[in-house]
């Protein structure tokens, strides 16, 4: 398949590009800067220059590549996990996720892309007995920062599932750990 990856330089980008290529897919990363584009070439992916906040650029990128699927791993989380950096990053993180999602969905609809895969959360389910399955609600009544995050994920999923004509998959990941994440010996929590 031809696959566009939005958010290709984040923690999951590098392993995801490698595994997509190993599975025989052609991978194109959306790159905001020439540096990102070079990093993508080094990783063996194609690069399409487009800022996800620019709807016209996203539309043009999708029209040019004509992917079978778009994978959205967009975040603007800080490299360093501190309360101050998380607070400072939150507005941009919300903007990149919500506007990026909207711009991708508009371009996908217009471009006839079949499948849309979105990063969501598997660690913010509402309190309850035992483990939560996919039918349960997010913790909308949690503490303010977490509740805001749950509303964002719910909005993203709801916009995507309300987009006609696409196959939508929400991947509700647990906390990432391992190389390139906050949780490894070289990462911020390890430090």
């Amino acid at each position, binding site marked *: 398949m031809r696959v566009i990856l939005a958010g290709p330089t984040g923690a999951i980008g590098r392993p995801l590009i490698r595994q997509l290529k190993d*599975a025989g897919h052609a991978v194109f990363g959306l790159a905001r800067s020439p540096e990102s584009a070079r990093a993508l070439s080094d990783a063996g992916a194609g690069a399409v220059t487009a800022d996800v906040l620019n709807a016209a650029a996203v539309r043009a990128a999708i029209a040019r590549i004509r992917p079978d699927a778009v994978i959205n791993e967009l975040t603007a989380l800080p490299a360093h996990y501190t309360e101050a950096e998380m607070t400072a990053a939150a507005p941009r993180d919300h903007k990149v996720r919500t506007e990026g999602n909207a711009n991708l969905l508009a371009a996908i609809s217009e471009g006839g892309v079949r499948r849309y895969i979105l990063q969501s959360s598997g660690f913010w389910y509402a309190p309850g007995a035992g483990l939560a*399955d996919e039918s349960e609600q997010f913790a909308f009544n*949690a*503490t303010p920062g977490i509740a805001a995050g749950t509303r964002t994920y719910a909005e993203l999923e709801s916009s995507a599932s309300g987009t006609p004509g696409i196959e939508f998959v929400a991947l*509700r990941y647990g906390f990432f750990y391992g190389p390139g994440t906050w949780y490894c010996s070289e990462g911020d929590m390890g430090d």
Partner: protein
Amino acid sequence: MIGKGEGVWSWVHIEDAAAATVAALECAPGAYNVVDSDPTPHHICLPAFARAVGAAEPPRLTKQQALDSFGADQVYYATRLRGASNGKAMRELHFEPRPLEWLQPPRK
């Protein structure tokens, strides 16, 4: 460590998350929990992580101390978080997450 640390954390190794994402190109549409098979209370995974990276045993705080120093979200993470089940991903994405690497040996 905050309070009793009874919040349950669902983790996923970044390589396992990537594998599930590749599989999601060809699955039935819908939502999938891409989490490990053994969500872990914070009072277990936090000290295990500290040991795995060679750090000291994490200091212990009461909920009130943590609330004052780190805010309500951090207290929620440590004491209220709920784990997720990965049965659907295992069945439909053929997801095979590794046990949390810091737990030696794995709890189950």
